[in-house]
């Protein structure tokens, strides 16, 4: 008993209290900041090195749905036109919004519909589907329940059964072998339900996008409510995005 109390004292106060103003290590790579005015004529160094073809030129843009934040482009750029900032507010409600250009300032998802906010604003239960996820995204989603991030305090939790869930969070590029299970799981969730894609693989296939072993048809058939970019996304990117989307500030 005494020992348990001792352990509890050791825990201190590890929680991230302010979800919107946490400080992350200097090298953490969040929202890219682009300065295409610095691009030398005819230079395409960044595009050449990008492993996921996330970069477009004229005008310069980075698709965070593809980007794995490696950050070769930043290191290759002769003029520092690309810089990955510490900004972890990256969640978006549309695929187009994930494409960052010079003009992109703050990224935040559009508010969820009134119906969704009314239904899920106070309590949201999610079922996770790992479809080819490498366990990077899964570990970060698990971290949401630890004492540091404790997402449960906002009424958002992961549940075991799709029957108890209000939506899914997909990780991974969706291999063929998971196609059927993904449909079955989604169909088992009562409506209305939401669909969240977590990580570059889920959003675009990421580094696996050209693999013949994928079947991403599910995503053509069901709308996506929220995109959480990253490889893997930081837990705070997920919580901050959810709070913004559901207007829980």
């Amino acid at each position, binding site marked *: 008993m005494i020992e348990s109390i001792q*352990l509890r004292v050791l825990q201190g106060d590890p929680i991230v209290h302010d979800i919107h103003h946490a400080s992350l290590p200097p090298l953490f790579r969040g929202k890219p900041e682009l300065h295409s005015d610095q691009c030398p004529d005819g230079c395409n160094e960044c595009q050449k*090195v990008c492993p996921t073809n996330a970069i477009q030129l004229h005008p310069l843009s980075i698709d965070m749905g593809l980007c794995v934040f*490696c950050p070769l482009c930043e290191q290759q750029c002769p003029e520092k036109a690309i810089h990955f900032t510490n900004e972890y507010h990256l969640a978006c409600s549309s695929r187009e919004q994930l494409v960052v250009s010079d003009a992109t300032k703050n990224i935040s998802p559009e508010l969820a519909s009134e119906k969704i906010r009314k239904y899920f604003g106070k309590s949201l239960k999610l079922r996770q589907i790992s479809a*080819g996820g490498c*366990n990077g995204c899964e*570990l970060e989603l698990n971290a949401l329940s*630890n004492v540091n991030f404790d997402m449960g305090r906002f009424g958002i939790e992961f549940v075991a059964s799709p029957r108890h869930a209000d939506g899914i969070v997909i990780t991974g590029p969706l291999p063929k072998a*998971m196609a059927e299970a993904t449909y079955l799981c989604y169909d088992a969730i009562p409506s209305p339900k939401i669909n969240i894609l977590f990580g570059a693989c889920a959003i675009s296939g990421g580094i696996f996008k050209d693999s013949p072993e994928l079947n991403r048809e599910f995503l053509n058939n069901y709308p996506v409510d929220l995109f959480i970019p990253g*490889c893997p996304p930081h837990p705070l990117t997920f919580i901050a995005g959810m709070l913004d989307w559901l207007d829980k500030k």
Partner: protein
Amino acid sequence: MISLTVQNHQPFAIKNIPILTLQEFEGSVREGMLTHARMIGLFGLEKTQTETTVIAVLSNPSTSSLHLVGTVFTAINNRYNSFAGVHQQTHYFECELAENHHIIPEGHPWLRPVRKQTVVLDKQPYSMYRMEGEEVHEVAVGPIHAGVIEPGHFRFQCHGELVYHLEINLGYQHRGIEQLLLNTSAAQQNILCESITGDTTVGHTMAHALAVEAISRTTVSLRTQTLRSIAEELERIAMHLAGLGGIANDVGYAIGAASYGRLRTLVINSSALLCGSRFGRGFIVPGGLRFDATTEAIELLQKNLSLVQKDVSTINSVMFDASSVLARLDHTGTVSGEWAKSIGMVGPAARASGIELDTRSQFPYGAYRYSPLPLITLSTGDVFARARIRSLEIDESIRFIFEQFENLPSGSIFNELQPRAKESGVISMVEGWRGEIAHCVFTDSQGSWKRYKIKDPSFHNWYGLALALRSEAISDFPLCNKSFDLSYSGHDL
């Protein structure tokens, strides 16, 4: 045995691998295994319209040597005598070879699919074992499990609570990594290796980088080697903490789960100090590192680790002393040393069963050549031993990291890669936190990859989990599963 003998990370010309007649090949592999070698690979190296050249790779920890030997199969002569009846450790390798190349092991005791569950291996589609009888029942779980976890399918044959047989069906995560690795840029290859299994990013990128550097005869600085090993040990500490937290959670020891969880956050945030990613992504690349450690990062990292060291020892001593915890861990999910050895188990799970196997000490590479780590073993092979060994390894890894920081060499963190040797190969083994990782890599006449074979430690150990469940209560499955902590994506590739 007749074979090409090389060392870990020693490049060789493919033409030096003896290609034997089938009979000689079988004899040679058998002889190797009788002299305590372990199989770490059995795969097709080259395929023409009519022929497939198959290579067997054996490793001998007692002599720190690797042995390669090959033979040729054709569409008509596609059978050999299975080794698995006597040497169970080859069972899964033979299944994999059959699945990928339709080369059939004659007399194999349990030919089953590895990643493609619907493939016809020999004559008929595989169907899982099923026990018949009164009050016998079958429990099927997955591919989607209760938690936030990767997919796989488990089928239990039970009598009441008691499990007679657990069969594990994987392949849901198959993304075709080995194939993708062949025709992509170096940057893409590195990201692919980071994603073989994202919890072992450092382990697999280390194996990849060492393989590429060996085959292009590029050396890296001492500083690079040291920082790489620090990252590898950080990954080990973090995942061991995650595993202990999971075990604490599964036995309902909430304060333990919360404490290990908090400390793990500190450790992965320390990895982020080195490279920005909590999983070591973007850190190790062939040729060196993408980030150098700054003085501030090192100071902060050491501060974090001192705290982890202090707290973890308190938590460990409380948890491994609590009778309510021990009652669940002791004598649960036992894999005897004899079984562990015969099925070729690796990593902490094998060491918990008393098997002396650790790539860092038996096939040392990088900084482990200069600063050896002790090879820790326990003997009981139960959940307790698998948990305890992870706590002991955390202590050693922390000690190792402090030691490295004490005299961190200076030097450049990146050296340009030389051109790759042509028609060559290299076996690159490293000790990931789950155990032995092997990347067997071969180039063609242009120096491009012609074969990239990956073996994650989980490839051996899933079968260990199945054995651990024999005659156990099905309610102990989550606990046993957590104590093995295996990778689905690493297995499925």
